[in-house]
């Protein structure tokens, strides 16, 4: 055998009879979209509030580093969600243009992207900040990508209730990053986001019910019907209002937060009641929009109070737990 024929044999995988992988058409924007930037911004904001209200504080550089790790971890969870849910996303108008179902990013690329980012985020949060925060971040990614996305979402109408825990962990991660522990106040912030999730998502699912039905996702309006969903939205809003006010009632927040929480909670109840009584899409859209504003204003009030040093004003019963 000549040298040339030997080398040609070695190079056989590069011949035309072997199918080549299609070159990636993914742009930078597609990879950024995989990170679910809007969800990520809410995660960063609530984690920042968790850090700000904690009794201990990190150096600003460490705060920035921790927030970036938390943001990247949340983005990784989003990428893993988009990898697994590509079949569902392709059937829904709202999600059909996402990078994987539209074909711009291959599933394997999204999976690798998510795993690598998750590994980096958890490892460096642990090495540079602390391992409790890193453990909570790892659990949050696992909970969102595996428990919610792979299991709950396609199995039960309680998917977003239980899965809502994944979105509720970031303030607790922020608190853990700052203190190295888990305090009652961080649990209250967790509970606020946890009980906020059902009215928020079910309001969205009420006006996207046909899409969820077509995709075979057992959202509550698909399985139990819109009337039962509106009833459950009202129940969760009634639970959310006092839970949102607990940081003030237990003495962890000031009067500005207290008034915001009471007013916001009453508004959520009023809009849920309105949706319960007059079931139309505009009422559901209004509740969905106001729910985003409610959570943002509530957490912003905590942040502003802490920045202005007003958190100790107007305690109704004094601090219950020190």
């Amino acid at each position: 055998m000549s040298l040339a024929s030997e080398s040609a044999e070695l190079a056989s995988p590069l011949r035309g009879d072997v199918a080549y992988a299609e070159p990636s058409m993914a742009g930078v924007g597609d990879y950024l979209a995989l990170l679910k930037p809007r969800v990520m911004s809410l995660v960063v904001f609530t984690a920042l509030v968790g850090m700000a209200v904690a009794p201990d504080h990190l150096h600003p550089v460490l705060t920035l580093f921790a927030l970036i790790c938390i943001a990247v971890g949340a983005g990784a969870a989003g990428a893993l969600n988009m990898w697994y849910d590509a079949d569902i996303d392709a059937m829904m108008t709202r999600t059909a243009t996402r990078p994987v179902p539209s074909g711009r990013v291959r599933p394997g690329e999204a999976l690798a992207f998510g795993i690598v980012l998750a590994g980096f985020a958890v490892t460096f949060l642990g090495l540079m900040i602390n391992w409790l925060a890193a453990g909570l971040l790892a659990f949050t990614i696992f909970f969102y990508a595996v428990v919610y996305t792979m299991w709950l979402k396609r199995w039960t109408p309680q998917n977003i209730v239980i899965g809502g825990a994944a979105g509720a962990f970031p303030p607790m991660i922020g608190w853990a990053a700052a203190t190295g522990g888990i305090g009652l106040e961080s649990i209250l912030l967790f509970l606020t986001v946890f009980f906020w999730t059902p009215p928020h998502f079910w309001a969205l699912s009420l006006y996207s019910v046909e899409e969820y039905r077509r995709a075979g996702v057992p959202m509550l309006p698909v399985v139990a019907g819109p009337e039962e969903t509106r009833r459950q939205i009202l129940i969760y809003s009634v639970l959310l209002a006092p839970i949102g006010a607990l940081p003030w009632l237990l003495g962890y927040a000031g009067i500005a937060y207290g008034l915001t929480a009471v007013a916001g909670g009453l508004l959520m109840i009023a809009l849920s009641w309105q949706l319960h009584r007059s079931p139309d899409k505009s009422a559901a859209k209004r509740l969905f929009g106001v729910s985003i504003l409610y959570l943002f204003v509530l957490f912003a009030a905590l942040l502003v109070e802490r920045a202005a040093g007003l958190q100790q004003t107007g305690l109704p019963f004094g601090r219950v737990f020190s």
Partner: protein
Amino acid sequence: MSLVMDQEPIEPGIVLTEEQKRRRRARSIAIALALGVFVALVYAVTLVKGPGVLIRPL
């Protein structure tokens, strides 16, 4: 027969379009920027935490 005659014609392999080249270049620049930011951040953290940056109670 010469060496050249023995050799089978080699396929050109994957030929990227201009758009694919442009996107690959954009991805490469983004990765470079992200790595640069990451290195700068880790360096800043080591400055804040001092030489014992990785020494901590578990």
